[in-house]
């Protein structure tokens, strides 16, 4: 395509509607319009001019605002669909296969489709990320395609515009003037903080051009924000893990290499409703208990750089800390939050070795359910030998007791009891409230005496190195919004024609009321001809015509 050479001699890029320099309409369609389309200063949106190679076609696709809005709509619909069934992290299953089965079992074929399409883990499904990426491409390309020509056009604009351009502006004034008019107008406009440039018989007054860059600054902010979100998927930038730790346990902190945490204890305090806490009395009466504090007391250890995982002797104590709700333990960019708890898990069980007939006790033993011993020696040479321990007994398979989990939820013990009365020993399988004597009736039994319990704390391990980037993106976004919303780009063109009459045109990208207020002041000071708002005139006329028809 050839460059468009305007009558004024300026070379415009192909596709330009209004000459960059003088503002003459460059095509017939534009010539016939009553008001000029000033949205992008009548520049060629480059996308719509070159359309040859495949690259141009892709480029043009993403340059379209319609496509951008379309992508946003699709994303909104997808996000809405993603809330219909629970996301996978809220599903009581851990492995991929179990999660898939869960959706099918609970929600039927709808669930199967939902899972297959990736709605169960929407933010990580490839097509969702792909769509967000396409939105990013659209933001960048659409901005480039509009910003560059707009910038060039505003940079190239002349003071003297063609009268056809001026007459197509919404604010227009024509009438007599005198020798002082231009000078006085310039005075007042400078007064009103306009940047005024003059050329021969005319002037251009301009204010707030930077407000035109608002949308592009805003898009830069969005792109930075999306970049930050993208970084979250890179290893090392973002950690969001759960750590269950029981009182007395020492555990490596997931995704925090080199750090190990010990739980000293979990505390749940409630309000008593007495003394200073009397104000909680009413609430306590109503709901039973009101929690005051959830707290895990922990010790943080660090494995030295040269030590290896598993090398527990080399651990160095870093700090003791109390983690409370909303008061995370922060160290080295990580934060540990108190998120959940589980009270009264079994820790030890006590039994008495009793003669079934006489009830006579041979003494008591306490089995540590976390770390049981093999032999428990009692009075007069009686011994209880632990043959098998099944912390979460789930039944027998091929005669073998099974455990479902490593946690002592339903402990089962296979024991051999030896007393002076029964020197050969008697075997018994004990679970809570049930005893099996697999090798015939026994004389002795282990009678349950009591339990000790411990609490488990559910902690969240979080690290987010992308926050400063997200913050920066958000800030730039807001600056762009303010720039575009609270400032306007206002321009006046004034020309004194050969016969001494004045031609004035005004344009703003928004807030026409403010523009008119400025012009009122200038008109008064420089005795300019009265202006009219051509768009209002047109609307009024349409209305009149409409009324005449009815």
């Amino acid at each position, binding site marked *: 395509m050839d460059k468009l050479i305007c009558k004024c001699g300026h070379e415009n890029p192909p596709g330009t509607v209004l000459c960059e320099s003088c503002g003459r309409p460059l095509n017939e369609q534009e010539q016939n319009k009553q008001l000029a389309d000033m949205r992008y200063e009548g520049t060629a949106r480059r996308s719509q001019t070159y359309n040859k190679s495949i690259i141009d076609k892709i480029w043009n696709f993403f340059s379209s605002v319609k496509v951008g809005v379309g992508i946003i709509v699709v994303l909104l619909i997808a996000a809405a669909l993603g809330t219909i069934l629970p996301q996978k992290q809220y599903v009581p299953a851990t492995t991929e296969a179990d999660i898939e089965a869960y959706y099918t079992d609970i929600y039927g074929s709808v669930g199967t489709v939902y899972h297959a399409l990736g709605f169960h883990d929407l933010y990580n499904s490839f097509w969702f990320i*792909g769509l967000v*990426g396409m939105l990013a491409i659209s933001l960048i390309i659409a901005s480039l395609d509009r910003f560059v020509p707009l910038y060039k056009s505003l940079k190239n604009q002349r003071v003297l515009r063609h009268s056809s351009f001026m007459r197509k502006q919404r604010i227009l004034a024509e009438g007599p003037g005198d020798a002082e008019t231009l000078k006085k107008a310039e005075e007042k406009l400078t007064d009103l903080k306009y940047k005024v440039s003059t050329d021969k018989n005319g002037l251009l007054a301009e204010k707030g051009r930077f407000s035109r860059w608002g949308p592009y600054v805003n898009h830069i902010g969005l792109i930075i924000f999306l970049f930050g979100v993208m970084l979250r998927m890179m290893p090392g930038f973002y950690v969001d893990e759960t750590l269950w730790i029981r009182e007395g346990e020492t555990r490596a902190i997931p995704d925090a290499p080199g750090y190990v945490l010990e739980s000293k204890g979990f505390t749940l305090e409630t309000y008593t409703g007495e003394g200073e806490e009397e104000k909680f009395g009413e609430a306590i009466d109503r709901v039973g208990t009101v929690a005051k504090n959830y707290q895990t007391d922990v010790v943080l250890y660090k494995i030295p750089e040269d030590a290896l995982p598993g090398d527990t002797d080399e651990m160095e104590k870093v700090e003791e800390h109390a983690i409370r709700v909303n008061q995370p333990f922060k160290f080295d960019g990580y934060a540990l939050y108190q998120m959940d708890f589980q009270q009264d898990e079994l820790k030890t069980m006590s039994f008495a070795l009793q003669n079934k007939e006489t009830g006579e006790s041979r003494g008591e033993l306490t089995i540590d359910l976390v770390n049981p011993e093999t032999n428990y020696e009692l009075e007069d040479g009686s011994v209880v030998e632990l043959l098998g321990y099944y912390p979460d007994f789930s039944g027998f398979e091929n005669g073998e007791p099974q455990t479902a989990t490593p946690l002592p939820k339903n402990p089962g013990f296979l024991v051999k009891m030896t007393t002076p009365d029964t020197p050969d020993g008697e075997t018994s399988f004990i679970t809570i409230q049930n005893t099996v004597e697999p090798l015939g009736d026994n004389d002795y039994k282990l009678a349950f005496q009591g339990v000790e319990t411990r609490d488990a704390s559910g902690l969240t391990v979080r690290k987010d190195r992308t926050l400063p980037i997200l913050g920066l993106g958000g800030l730039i976004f807001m600056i762009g919004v303010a720039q575009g919303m609270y400032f306007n780009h206002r321009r006046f063109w004034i020309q004194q024609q050969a016969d001494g009459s004045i031609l004035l045109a005004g344009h703003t990208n928004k807030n026409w009321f403010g523009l008119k207020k400025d012009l009122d002041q200038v008109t008064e000071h420089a005795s300019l001809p009265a202006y009219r708002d051509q768009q209002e005139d047109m609307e009024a006329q349409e209305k009149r015509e409409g009324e005449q028809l009815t």
Partner: protein
Amino acid sequence: MSTEKKRNKKKNRTIMRSVILLLLVAAIGYTIYNSVTADEVEVLKVGDPAPDFTLTDLDGETHKLSDYKGQGVFLNFWGTWCEPCIKEMPAMANQYEVYEDQGVQILAVNIAQSNFEVETFARQYGLNFPIVIDRDKSVMTAYNIRPLPTTMLVNPQGEIQRIVTGEMTEQDIAGFMEEIKPE
């Protein structure tokens, strides 16, 4: 002159647009790749050096992974509550008898259970290979083990040769040992 200029400009434009599009598509591609692979073993991939560790077995002997350089290491993570783990243990013991002399070492890493449970289990199944206990789950964390059983096959160069999740048959085990056997 003018047509040549125009042609150049057009060429530049195509190059510019291609570069921008390529960069953006690469960024998206990388993001998708990361999110898809995030669920699997996040830190470790086949070909990575196997993280070194040191753990103590039931006899009180220390096993350091790097001490086995030059041998293949069959690193099996397991627990007594995990049914497929239990099932594959006797097969591992059988194959250990074959491959121990050929330079393949089994290390069975139990996840934070008590000495008693692990000892009882080893005795019951007559396990002949060293079993170490990862008491604070630090080795499990370093290897990012999610489901049990997971087996890391470490070749004589100390690199991860293969990552196996789920139950293995005796035939599988023999094949894997063959893979990591020193030349």
